[in-house]
C-alpha cells in the first residue's frame, strides 16, 4: 500500500489550514515560503507517484478498509498513469500560479493562498478517487474554493456577479450528480467505482441506469463547461484574478472531462459498451462546443473572456477525443490536456501582466500599447501558436492522436470540424496579439461589441517574476509535442485507463498486472492528414486574424454580403450568452433533459 496518494491531498489541505490559522501571526515571507513549498512538494510527490503508477495500479484503502470477502466496502484512491499525470500537471500549474501571485496578489489577504492550496488538494483527490461519493465531495470542495477565488475582489461588482453565476450553475451540476449517485447506489448498493462496474456487468442495465448516467455525466459536463453548460465560464474567467484564471482555465475546468472518462470506462462501459451511442453523443457535444466556442472567442474584445472561450473550445476537442472511445483518442485528449493547461495558464499570465502595466484588459483599448514589451509578446504569440496546433508545436500531438482515432473509426469529417474550432480560437488570440503588441489593425471594430467596464488594477508587482513565470509556462506547453516517448506513454496510459474490467480486477486485487512492455523513446509519428490539417489550420487562422484586423480594407460588396449573412447568427449567439443566471439554469436543465432523452432513445431500444 502506497502512502503517496493520500499525501497528495493531505499536504495541501493541512498547509491550507496552517496558512489560514497563522494569518497575521507569522511574517509574510514565511507564509509565502510555506505555501510554495507545500505546492512544490505535492508536485514532486505526484511525479514519484507517476513513476510508480507506470508499472502497477497504486491503490490506497483509507483506514485499512480493504476488501471483505471480495466486496469493496471502504473508500479508495486508485491511481493509474492518467490520474498521476493529471496530478503532476495540476501541481505544476498551481505552483506557477502561486509563484505568480507572490507579487501579483501581494495586497490580498492570506486566505487567498489557503484557497489555492485547498483547490490543489481537492483537484488531486478528484483525479485519484476510486469512489463515486468521494468524487462528489472533491468536486464540491474544489468548486467552493473556486467560487471564493473568483469573487475574491469583492470590492467590485463584476467579480461578485461572475462568482454568483459560477456558484449557482456549478452547484446545480453538483446536485444533479448527487441525485445520480443516489440512483446508482439504489441500483447497485455500492459506491466504489470498481464494485459498481462489477455489479452492472451482470445483466441488462435498464432505464434507471440511463437516468443515473445522464445525471452523473451532466454534472461533470457542467464542471467541464461543455455547450450548453458552458455559459458560466466566460463570466467567471473575465473577472477572476489572472493566477486564478490560470488554475481555473488550465486544469480545473478540464478536470470535469477526466470525470466523464473515468465514469464511462469503469462503470458505464459494461452495460452500454456494445453500442457507440454514449460516445457518439459526447463526440457531437465536443464538436459543437469546439466550433461554437471558437466563434465566440473570435467575437470577444475582453482578453480574459476571449481566453475563456478558447479554453471551452479546446475542452470540446478533448471531449471529442474521449467520445471516440478508443485509445488514440483518449491519448490525444491526455496530451492535449497537458499542453493546453500550461499554454492557457501562460496566456492568462500574460493577460495579467498587460492588465497591471496598462490597467486595461480590452483588446481595442490596448491597441499598440504592448509595443516594446518583448518577452510578454513572445510568450503570447508562442502560446497562441501552440494552441493552434501547428505541426509539432504545443497541442499538435494531442490533436493528431484524436485525428488518428477518428480516422480509424471511419469518421474523417470529425478532423475538419475540430481543426476549424481550434483555428477560430487561435485566430482570435493572434488578432489580439497583433493588435496589442504590434499595433496592427483598426482602433475600432463594431463586430466586437460594446466594451465591458474596466476595473482599474493598481498593483505593486515585481514584473520580471511575472514575465518569467509566463515564459516558463508557455515554454513547457510548447515542448509537449516534441518530448521523446511522451506519445507512446500516453497511449499506454490510455490503454490501461480504458480496460474497465481489468481496472476492477486490479482494484479488487484479483490478479496482478502483467509487467509493462518497454516503450519506445522517440517523438511519435503522426499521419500526413494531421500534418496537413495542422498546417492549414495555421494558415487559416493567420488569414482570419488578418481579416479581423483589416476588415475595412476588403471590397465593399464583400463586406456588405458577409455582414448580411453573418449578422443574424452572431446576434443570436451573443444574446444567448446573456449574463443572467436564470437563462443559464434553463439551458442546463434543457440540456440535461435532451441528453437523457437521446440516450434513452438510443440505448433502450
Amino acid at each position, binding site marked *: 500500500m502506497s502512502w503517496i496518494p493520500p499525501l497528495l491531498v493531505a499536504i495541501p489541505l493541512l498547509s491550507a489550514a496552517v496558512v489560514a490559522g497563522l494569518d497575521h501571526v507569522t511574517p509574510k515571507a514565511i507564509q509565502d515560503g510555506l505555501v510554495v513549498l507545500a505546492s512544490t512538494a505535492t508536485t514532486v510527490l505526484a511525479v514519484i507517484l507517476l513513476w510508480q503508477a507506470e508499472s502497477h495500479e497504486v491503490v490506497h484503502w483509507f483506514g485499512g478498509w480493504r476488501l471483505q470477502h471480495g466486496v469493496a466496502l471502504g473508500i479508495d484512491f486508485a491511481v493509474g498513469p492518467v490520474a498521476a499525470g493529471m496530478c503532476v500537471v495540476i501541481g505544476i500549474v498551481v505552483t506557477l500560479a502561486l509563484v505568480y501571485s507572490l507579487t501579483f496578489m501581494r495586497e490580498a489577504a492570506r486566505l487567498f493562498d489557503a484557497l489555492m492550496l485547498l483547490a490543489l488538494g481537492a483537484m488531486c483527490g478528484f483525479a485519484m478517487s476510486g469512489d463515486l461519493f468521494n468524487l462528489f465531495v472533491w468536486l464540491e470542495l474544489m468548486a467552493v474554493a473556486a467560487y471564493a477565488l473568483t469573487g475574491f475582489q469583492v470590492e467590485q461588482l463584476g467579480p461578485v456577479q461572475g462568482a454568483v453565476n459560477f456558484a449557482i450553475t456549478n452547484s446545480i451540476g453538483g446536485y444533479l450528480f448527487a441525485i445520480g449517485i*443516489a440512483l446508482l447506489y439504489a441500483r447497485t448498493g455500492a459506491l466504489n467505482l470498481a464494485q459498481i462496474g462489477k455489479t452492472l456487468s451482470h445483466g441488462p442495465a435498464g432505464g434507471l441506469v440511463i437516468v443515473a448516467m445522464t445525471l452523473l455525466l451532466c454534472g461533470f459536463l457542467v464542471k467541464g463547461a461543455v455547450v450548453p453548460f458552458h455559459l458560466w465560464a466566460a463570466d467567471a474567467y473575465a473577472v477572476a484574478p489572472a493566477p486564478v484564471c490560470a488554475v481555473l482555465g488550465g486544469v480545473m475546468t478540464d478536470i470535469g472531462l477526466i470525470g466523464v472518462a473515468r465514469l464511462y470506462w469503469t462503470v458505464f462501459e459494461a452495460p452500454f459498451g456494445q453500442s457507440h451511442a454514449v460516445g457518439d453523443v459526447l463526440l457531437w457535444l465536443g464538436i459543437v462546443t469546439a466550433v461554437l466556442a471558437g466563434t465566440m472567442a473570435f467575437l470577444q474584445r475582453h482578453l480574459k473572456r476571449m481566453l475563456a472561450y478558447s479554453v471551452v473550445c479546446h475542452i470540446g476537442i478533448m471531449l471529442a477525443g474521449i467520445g471516440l472511445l478508443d485509445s488514440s483518442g483518449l491519448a490525444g485528449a491526455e496530451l492535449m490536456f497537458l499542453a493546453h493547461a500550461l499554454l492557457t495558464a501562460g496566456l492568462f499570465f500574460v493577460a495579467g501582466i498587460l492588465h497591471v502595466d496598462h490597467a486595461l484588459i480590452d483588446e481595442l483599448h490596448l491597441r499598440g500599447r504592448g509595443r516594446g514589451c518583448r518577452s510578454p509578446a513572445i510568450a503570447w504569440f508562442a502560446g497562441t501558436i501552440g494552441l493552434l496546433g501547428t505541426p509539432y508545436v504545443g497541442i499538435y500531438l494531442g490533436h493528431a492522436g484524436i485525428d488518428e482515432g477518428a480516422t480509424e473509426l471511419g469518421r474523417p469529417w470529425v478532423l475538419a470540424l475540430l481543426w476549424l474550432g481550434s483555428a477560430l480560437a487561435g485566430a482570435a488570440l493572434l488578432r489580439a496579439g497583433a493588435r496589442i503588441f504590434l499595433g496592427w489593425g483598426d482602433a475600432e471594430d463594431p463586430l466586437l461589441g460594446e466594451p465591458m467596464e474596466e476595473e482599474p488594477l493598481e498593483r505593486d508587482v515585481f514584473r520580471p517574476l511575472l514575465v518569467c513565470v509566463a515564459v516558463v509556462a508557455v515554454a513547457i506547453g510548447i515542448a509537449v509535442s516534441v518530448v521523446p516517448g511522451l506519445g507512446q506513454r500516453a497511449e499506454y496510459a490510455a490503454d490501461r485507463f480504458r480496460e474497465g474490467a481489468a481496472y476492477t480486477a486490479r482494484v479488487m486485487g484479483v490478479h496482478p498486472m502483467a509487467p509493462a512492455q518497454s516503450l519506445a523513446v522517440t517523438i511519435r509519428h503522426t499521419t500526413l492528414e494531421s500534418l496537413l490539417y495542422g498546417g492549414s489550420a495555421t494558415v487559416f487562422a493567420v488569414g482570419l486574424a488578418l481579416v479581423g484586423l483589416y476588415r475595412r480594407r476588403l471590397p465593399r460588396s464583400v463586406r456588405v454580403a458577409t455582414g448580411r449573412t453573418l449578422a443574424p447568427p452572431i446576434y443570436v449567439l451573443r444574446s444567448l450568452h446573456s449574463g*443572467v443566471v*436564470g437563462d443559464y439554469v434553463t439551458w442546463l436543465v434543457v440540456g440535461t433533459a435532451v441528453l437523457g432523452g437521446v440516450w434513452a432513445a438510443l440505448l433502450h431500444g
Partner: protein
Amino acid sequence: MSYLPYAVAAWVCVVGLAGIATSRNLIHLAICLMVTQSSSYVLLLSVGYVTHGKAPIFKETKLGTTAVDPVVQALTLTDIVVSVAVIALILALALDAHRLSGTVDPDGVADISG
C-alpha cells in the same frame, strides 16, 4: 414501499429548478437552490429505507435485526455540510452585490454578457 417518496423527490427538484430559473432575487434564489438540493436528501433516504427497519444504532441490538441503511444517512449528512458552505458563500456574495449595486435582482445586477 410506495413510490410516493420518489415522486416527492422529483417534484421538489423540479420546483426548486423552476424557482432558480425564474428568480428575481438572489436570496430567494439561494433558498431555491437549497430546495433543489433537498430533493437529493429525500431520494437518498428513501433509497435506504427498509419497511419496519430500526435506526442503524447497533448497541445492545440482536444480530439479524432489520435496520435502515446507514450509508445513505452518512451521505445525506455530508451533502448537507457541503451545501451549507455553498449557500453561505452565495448569501455573502448577494450581500456584496446589494452593497455595490443596490439591488439583489440578478437581471438588475447583470452588466456582463456576450
